[in-house]
């Protein structure tokens, strides 16, 4: 069912990471919301990471584990005092395990308006091929 009807967005607090591993740096860590979908040729991952600049986003792929790690600088300027604080800012961190079918050399990442689009192409052998049956 397609989302043709627009619904009203609900306010949601950002999900904080609860990893067993200790953080080496102080500050809050959040899990970015992601969409992951797959076509015959590639897997696409979209992640909401507001406040992250391209230079501060680390995408690391090691032994099939993909790690997204985005740093956010405090947006407030010097001398600004809080009036209302409804959301908090901090790093974004999330890990995914990839299958062997990803062509790791052709991964392509694009960060625009706080949304990351990561293209993970499948290796040639894994893309389905139609085989014509000769009569």
């Amino acid at each position, binding site marked *: 069912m397609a*989302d043709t009807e*627009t*619904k*009203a*967005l*609900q*306010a*949601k*607090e950002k999900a904080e990471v609860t990893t067993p591993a200790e953080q080496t740096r102080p500050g809050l860590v959040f899990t970015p*919301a*992601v*969409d*992951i*979908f*797959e*076509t*015959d040729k590639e*897997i*696409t991952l*979209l992640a*909401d*990471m*507001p*406040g*992250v*600049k391209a230079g501060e986003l680390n995408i690391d792929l090691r032994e099939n584990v993909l790690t997204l790690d985005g740093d956010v600088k405090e*947006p*407030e*300027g010097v*001398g*600004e*005092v*809080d*009036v*209302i*604080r*409804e*959301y*908090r800012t901090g790093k974004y961190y999330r890990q995914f395990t990839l299958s062997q079918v990803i062509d790791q050399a052709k991964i392509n990442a694009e960060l625009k*308006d*706080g*949304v990351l689009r990561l293209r993970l192409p499948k290796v040639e052998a894994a893309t389905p091929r139609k085989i014509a049956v000769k009569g």
Partner: protein
Amino acid sequence: MLWRRTTDWPTWGWTSPFEELERMRRQMDWLTGSLSRGVFGQLAAGVFPLMNVTEDKDNYYVRAELPGLKANELDISVTGDTLSISGERKLPAEDEKAQYHRREREAGRFSRIVSLPAQIDAGKVEARCTDGVLTVTLPKAEAAKPKQIAVKAS
């Protein structure tokens, strides 16, 4: 100790047992109410988008996280001391044949009105959207700015 507590319990001289129940209920309400408050114990409105408001000497700054939205997709207006922001977050349609593994990002309409503590110079309001974070800079009206008063020596 336990003995003292039980005997000190105010219901021992009860006039009405329901009064005590009512008191306990109020206390529970107060407890749960204080827990459901927003970040840092302040009341959050719970309306999308969540906003952080800060101020310095000259301006108010309203910030909201709106990933994927462009400045021209937002409708921002100011009157007196209120700021209203509305818009729609659209997620571009992907390949029809795409099979979703995860779908956590949400699309939809939103609209929010915030009252600021002082009057705003509506003509000089600026809004910027960078890296999915909207920042609205609202200069305080001259009348609302703090003024230094020089004391004259007589």
